[in-house]
């Protein structure tokens, strides 16, 4: 609870509820990063709302000393959309997971993204169903062996960033739970973007799917596998930047030695209006077991749904004057009985 107007700290965004994720869960790191970030960017707890669905990640709102709704499975984007339309003065965040946001709630996610409602959507991707104790999820790699797939999963996983770009989301990014600095940078940009911001966060579920993101986190491998997207920079990776991303003639992208890249090296520009290049980037990896781009894929300004909706209300008022209830009831053919 906060009533003072001065500079806030992480504590001002921390509720008195005991955090109940499993010890070691990646969610802790994300929670701490978000709490600190909100204090640092000068957000106000009373103006901030976290809306979640169902799943481990969706307990998040209970730990934030802001307003919050722990809604039902998959529907958080819909609840948040109504709130954002009704209340333009609020910062509305959606916390969802790979099961909540991409499986049962895939429809709402797609429509929130294409509408460009003023929301920040954080999708904690742990490639597993945690709360229901370990079934494969829509982002689990093909052939994943879990409780419900003892002989391996048969369905191709969805690539959350590619899906968001396909829906033409205006801000699309990816980060990693424990990389505090990178995550903070991405989340701050998401916070500042007006319209829907979509951030996929690789989140380790140490109980049911430990090590899913080891390729990007292990100090020995991460330099080989993290492709850090930096605006205005040629896209290279590897300990010495010795590998590069190049554009192929068919519009796809691939890796070569930087020394051989020449003119074909891709220079990162998240502000391109066409999402095509960002989409090609997103296709470089399907599950983060090899070189995988992280950072901001797309960041463009486009009209925001809730702003447009309110403008229509204002335009209607300007054109017709504020509504008069008596006149409304008596609209159409009326007649008097004496």
């Amino acid at each position, binding site marked *: *609870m*906060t*009533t003072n107007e001065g500079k806030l700290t992480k504590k001002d965004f921390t509720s008195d*509820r005991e955090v109940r994720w499993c010890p070691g869960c990646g969610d802790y790191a994300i929670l701490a990063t978000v709490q600190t970030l909100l204090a640092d960017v000068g957000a*106000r*707890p*009373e*103006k*901030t*709302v*976290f809306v979640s669905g169902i799943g481990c990640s969706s307990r998040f*709102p*209970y730990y*934030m*000393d*802001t*307003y*919050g*709704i*722990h*809604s*039902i499975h998959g*529907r958080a*984007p*819909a*609840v*948040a*959309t*109504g*709130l954002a*339309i*009704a*209340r333009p*003065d*609020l910062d509305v965040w959606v916390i969802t997971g790979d099961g909540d946001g991409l499986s049962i709630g895939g*429809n*709402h996610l*797609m*429509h929130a993204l294409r509408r460009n409602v003023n929301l920040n959507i954080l999708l904690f991707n742990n490639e597993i169903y945690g709360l229901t104790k370990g079934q494969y999820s829509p982002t689990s790699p093909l052939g994943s062996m879990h409780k419900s797939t003892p002989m391996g999963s048969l369905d191709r996983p969805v690539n959350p960033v590619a899906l968001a770009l396909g829906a033409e989301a205006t801000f699309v990014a990816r980060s990693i739970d424990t990389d505090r600095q990178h995550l903070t940078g991405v989340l701050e940009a998401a916070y500042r973007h007006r319209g829907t911001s979509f951030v996929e966060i690789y989140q380790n579920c140490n109980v049911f799917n430990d090590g899913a993101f080891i390729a990007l986190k292990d100090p020995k491998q991460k330099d080989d596998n993290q492709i850090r997207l930096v605006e205005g920079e040629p896209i290279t990776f590897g300990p010495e930047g010795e590998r590069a991303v190049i554009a192929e003639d068919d519009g796809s992208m691939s890796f070569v030695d930087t020394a051989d890249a020449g003119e074909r090296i891709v220079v990162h520009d998240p502000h391109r209006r066409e999402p095509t290049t960002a989409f090609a980037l997103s296709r470089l990896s399907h599950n983060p077991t090899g070189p995988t781009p992280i950072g901001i894929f797309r960041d463009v300004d486009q009209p925001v749904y809730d702003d447009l*909706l309110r403008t*229509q*209300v204002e335009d*209607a*008022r300007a*054109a017709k*004057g*504020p*509504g008069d*209830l*008596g006149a*409304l*009831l*008596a*609209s*159409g*053919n*009326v*007649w*008097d*009985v004496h």
Partner: protein
Amino acid sequence: MSGSTAARSRVTLSNAVVRFAGDSGDGMQLAGDQFTSQSAIAGNDLATLPDFPAEIRAPAGTLAGVSSFQLHFSDQDIHTPGDAPDVLVAMNPAALMKHFGALKPGGTLIVNVDAFSDRNLQKAGYESNPLEDDSLTDYQVHEVRITDLTLRALEGHVERGELNKKEAERCKNMLALGLVSWMFHRPIAETEEWLTTKFAKVPEVADANITALRAGRNYGETTEAFTYTYEVKPAKLAPGRYRNITGNQALAYGLVAAAERAGLELFYGSYPITPASDILHELAKLKHYGVATFQAEDEIAAIGSVIGAAFGGSLAVTASSGPGIALKTEAMGLAMVMELPLIVVNVQRGGPSTGLPTKTEQSDLLQVLHGRNGEAPIPTVAASSPSDCFHAAIEAARIALTYRTPVVLLSDGYLANSAEPWLLPDVADLPDLSTSFAFTTEPNGPDGGFLPYLRDERTLARPWALPGTAGLEHRIGGLEKEDGSGHISYEPENHHAMTELRHERMQRIADQLPALEVDDPSGEAEVLLLGWGSTEGPIRAACHQLRERGTPVARVHLHHLNPLPNEVDELLRSYDTVICPENNMGQLSMLLRARTLVDVRPYTRVTGQPFSAAELVDAVDAAITEGAR
């Protein structure tokens, strides 16, 4: 038609029922709407029954493609669109086939003979032409060349290239309307004005329609085929200003009125579905009243958005029909347990599953009352007539705001599309909903904290604290919570206590409901007719007929289905026989029996049409005969 013959073949009637029937493309709804306006302006009381196919363009000339519009108008106070038509206008054989059976014995039949080709007869399923055999001998049949007359009237328009032949033919509904208007001495000036406005951008089309309309009237006047014309004098309606209104329109206006009287913005989130979509269309036009309409991607998103808007402090409303309500079920439970004020409108249609999208039914009562997981009571209000949809919307808002709960508002396909004259209320007399709630702005806890589930003692409502209010930050959700603090709680006794509290809140609503109005003028009735929703019209009409004939009968109509009014137990026990007519298989009867242990007799029909008064009279007669045995 009942009445007396006046001089020069003008017959004065107390009331009449006219039905226009034709192909979906024949413009019957439009002709019916205009005839309704003319009758309203003539001062009649009236009730309408539009009936159209679920298919947007069913094959022309087939039974499936027949669309009809019935109007009952009277010099008395009436409550139903009428049982059997006195006049049937059949624009083609399929319309005749489908509607002929309903026509009153000896009734008047106007047929468009031009449409009675072999092919159309065959499509309608006629083996021989009914106009040529003796199947219509007991009726006043007028064979009119409606298509041909229309084309001839518009010959000049076609020659001048203002419209082609097909477009000219489309004006035949206006020719039929002109003829019927003449038959009933209806002035057509208003219709002409309406056509001029409607086709303002294409004046040649307006002119063609007006020409056809006048041609119809002139045909009536000049031909000698019509020996009688009819007149229905103005009804003695209560003084005041009137307009015609359909249920969906009234419901939309009621929501706007409720928001204004509560001092809230209206948020309406919904997904298109028959027969509820017109509410969305109506509200989308009213943005200057501060109405935000959101067409969601599906039914679940629609109610999701409404939950978000309610949390943000709007008067938040979603509407659907049975199939959509099924999808909203889980979210309704969430709204209920989060104790947020919002309204879920169910414009019921024929079920189950996709059922009969354009027909009426009352079979979602148990769905909205009990169709949720867990113990999840939700207050439920039902509208009883098209104009009552306005007041029912305000009542739903009152309960939602006062008790911080979702409320279901039941309408149905019949109320949604039917029209009746509505004595306009004075805006100042509408309930002041701003007194039913106040946003919480100060901490309410012992140590300056905020307890989101600390309840009002009288209503048991929890605080409504809006995001943006510093110091009242709180989290709510679908998990069971501790009363007061709202913290998640899995304590066994707490869950039981919270469940009881949520039921107790329903009892508080019941304790504060207005008294039931029992209509038992003689005080001698032994039979009580108890109804809810759109059956009010037919039940009233049936009671009127029974009393006219000397059979005492009492009537009561429930506007609140959950909670039921406290008096129902005593009321039901005070009559020998209680009959409950419903357009379902006895859902309310079952609830009443369970609650009161009174042997309520269901009278049930699910034809997709409202009850006729006659069948309800028969049901009462049967009950009385049985009781006497």
